[in-house]
């Protein structure tokens, strides 16, 4: 039964935190524009930090509920801060996804008042422009609510890897969704839509649960749709148990420093991936951890110009890395387009879909790719790597991957091009491929499966 929102008379903005805070423009304008449960945020100058955070804290202090949610409207500008939302029923929205930028940059000092200290104990802080996390970091088994957080129409940029070393630095992302690590959290949906999300390393990083003590609950649910994701490394990466639904997004994975306003100095030796899911579930509700991708387009490109060595690394449209023992995830992909064009004189794995690790048994139907197109091209004649459309490099004995109604195009200026490569079972139907390699450019047959 629907619950009606309470009828309210107009009230002044909840500006307890803003009354003396010039950064929130708490003047007559705010009073005019701030109606029920809406805060408008403006950025008077870039050197300030924490403007949006104060709005978030102000809104959450009102105890938003499903009948009484709060909205924060961020007006165009550059906001140098690391926002943390650790509550529910709140929306963070903008109307210029190109130039309403929430960013962190350690070169500029004030990039982060939140975050996690570096493992080495230094005073540096990781740069996450937005973190959505459980209401309280858990200390014991229990339910810690998060969710009903909606992010819409904004741009996020972690434009510079904090420790300055590029690949190998602590993970950081433009948006981090953090469910509390090893402890279960009750999670209502989190929605991220119509945003532009730029990352120097990750664009979006989702940390799900690793432990599931309550059998009837499900791990975090993320709706991620209509976003433009640009990064040099991983576009949308999920680790742990999570229900991730990715629809209609565009991913531009560029390792040459072409992403606007990202720090190209920090790019070297990247792995690259459009959507990455590394499940590490140890619970019993393995079927509730899944990746669903529908209508996503991933465009990847990289060259020797910036990428440096790629030896031993990979560039792949979708990566499944189930490194931990325990239960497995479900993968359901439909309507995916991957186009990877690499010009790198090095040995690495180039794939459209890549299972890097799969330590658990995937029964039939658990991992399926339907109605998708994969193009992988190595155009560098000095690159010895094989290219593979669907590469099931390592799965558990007895695993089954199902592929239907797909099209694969692989070309290789030096090594071999395969449609598929696997050591385990692939059930396939209506898979069409064309492959050409340096040997002569002819179309090859489907690789042995």
């Amino acid at each position, binding site marked *: 039964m629907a619950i009606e929102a309470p009828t309210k008379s107009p009230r002044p903005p909840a500006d307890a935190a803003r009354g003396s805070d010039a950064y929130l423009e708490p003047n007559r304008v705010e009073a005019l524009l701030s109606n029920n449960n809406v805060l408008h945020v403006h950025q008077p100058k870039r050197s300030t930090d924490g403007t949006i955070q104060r709005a978030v804290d102000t809104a959450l202090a009102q105890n938003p509920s499903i009948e009484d949610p709060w909205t924060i409207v961020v007006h165009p*500008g550059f906001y140098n801060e690391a926002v943390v939302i650790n509550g529910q029923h709140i929306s963070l929205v903008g109307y210029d996804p*190109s130039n309403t930028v929430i960013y962190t940059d350690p070169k500029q000092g004030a990039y982060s008042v939140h975050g996690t200290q570096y493992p080495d104990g230094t005073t540096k802080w990781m740069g996450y422009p937005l973190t959505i996390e459980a209401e309280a970091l858990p200390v014991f088994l229990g339910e810690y609510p998060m969710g009903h957080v909606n992010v819409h129409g904004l741009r996020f940029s972690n434009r510079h890897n904090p420790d300055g070393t590029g690949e190998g630095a602590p993970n950081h992302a433009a948006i981090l969704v953090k469910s509390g690590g090893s402890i279960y959290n009750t999670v209502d949906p989190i929605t991220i839509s119509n945003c532009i999300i730029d990352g120097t390393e990750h664009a979006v990083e989702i940390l799900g649960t690793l432990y599931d003590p309550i059998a009837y609950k499900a791990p975090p649910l993320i709706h991620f749709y209509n976003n433009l994701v640009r990064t040099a490394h991983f576009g949308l990466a999920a680790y742990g148990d999570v229900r991730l639904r990715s629809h209609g997004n*565009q991913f531009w994975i560029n390792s040459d420093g*072409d992403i606007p306003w990202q720090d190209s100095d920090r790019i070297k030796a990247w792995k690259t991936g459009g959507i990455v899911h590394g499940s590490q579930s140890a619970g019993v509700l393995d079927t509730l951890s899944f990746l669903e991708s529908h209508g996503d*387009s991933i465009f990847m490109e990289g060259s020797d110009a910036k990428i440096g060595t790629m030896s031993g690394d990979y560039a792949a449209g979708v990566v499944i890395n189930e490194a931990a023992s325990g239960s497995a995830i479900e993968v359901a992909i439909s309507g995916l*387009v991957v186009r990877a064009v690499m010009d790198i004189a090095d040995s690495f794995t180039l794939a459209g879909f890549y299972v890097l690790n799969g330590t658990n048994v995937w029964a039939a139907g658990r991992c399926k790719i339907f109605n998708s197109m994969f193009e992988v091209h190595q155009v560098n004649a000095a690159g010895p790597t094989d290219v593979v459309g669907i590469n099931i490099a390592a799965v558990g004995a007895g695993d089954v991957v199902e592929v239907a109604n797909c099209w694969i195009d692989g070309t290789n200026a030096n090594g071999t091009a395969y449609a598929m490569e696997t050591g385990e079972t692939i059930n396939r139907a209506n898979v069409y491929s064309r492959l050409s390699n340096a040997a002569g450019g002819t179309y090859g047959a489907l690789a042995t499966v």
Partner: protein
Amino acid sequence: MATSPPLKAPRPMIDIYGDGSSDLFWPNDAEAALNNHNVIHVHQPRRTSYGVIQRAVDRVKAANPTPEDPWTIVVHPGFYCEAIMLDASNVSLVGLDPFNTCIYTDPNQGAANADTNRRDPLTIRNMDTALPTATLVENVGIHNLRFSNRNNGKGEGGPPTAGLFIGHRPNILGHAHTLPWNNVTVSGCVIDGVHDAIQMFGTTAEGFPQTSRPPLLFLQNNLFRCCHDAYTVKGDMRVVSTSNRSWVNANGQIPWLDDSRISGWKATGFHLNEGSQGIVAHNPFVFVDSNGDSFFVEASDNVGTGQGNVTGVLIYANFSNPDAYRTRWIDTVVRVECAYPGSVVLNGFQLLEQRDTGAVSTRDDHVIRGAMIDVHQRSTDPLATSDAIGIDIGGNVGSEAEVMDCMINVSNAGAGAAYAMRATRTVYRANIFSKQSNAAGGTYLAMPTV
């Protein structure tokens, strides 16, 4: 090397009004405070004024936006009669209401054309075409606005105007070899054209001035409405098109377009015309990725003289060059509805690559998979002699296409036949479900031999 954004002291708003009159609903104090750094709010007090947004663009350009210091122009709901030239980088043009924040041109209303050669409500490109000094226009975002070129003055044969135009028209004619733009994002817009909705002209040269990659364009969640071509694509570029909807109506039913100018239209959802002539370094060099787009094309006897095409997607090139383009279509929905009582070309997809020199390319290829294609001739007039074809593949030797996992439904109530596919060049096909019915009695015909 990254640079730090400049630190600025607060400064007063920049306000742009149509005519400076005092009867504005906005602005007020609120507006004054909303104009913070690098943001201009534009309001339109009267429709007859001209150049309001252009003035905002000019001010932005004068500020020399950079990736670290971009500018935003917020257009508030209203009707803005002007032809904007956006020749600045690191700028976004955004609206709040994509239906009624309308930037339009209309020669019937006089003020639409300070430049009579430019009737596109918005043009994105550099103005300096001289080599090697031309400046790239890049990092442009267009969001949640409506553009309408509601009258091109002459109908078919008149200026090929568009609701949104990107690039330089002369490029494809073999003149300028420029990279006029790059990294443009258009999302959430409603784009109307009495001729085309969006026209994109890429580069005909490689490697200038920035990279060996041609311009990159992202189209997402837009609604294109027009009487002629929803998309026109010419020259080298990289287009990623996701979840856009096109409605091509040759009968004057597009809201607020001038149907008096509509006669004898071709009607096409996506029209890729003329390809690359650069020297390929990256492979593939030119591409169109369309994922989840839908094209609805309809024409009736109101269309006037029925010339040209009524086609969902048309790939056509007659430019002599050794290069190629690649198009990929996935989850595409095409519906072509025609009631014209005469002879027209009726296709869901038509792939023609007729290079005027007869150049052979083995690199042009087009892949259609997961598409649903409807093509229907509803007219029972005996003069309606055209065949209706779901996918028609022609072109020169070396052209090829792959079609798979599609559902095709073709009917013809006129004197012509109905075919799921027809091909004169190489086509690989598999897993295609089709039904065809024609005037002979609505029986299903077999797939033509390919």
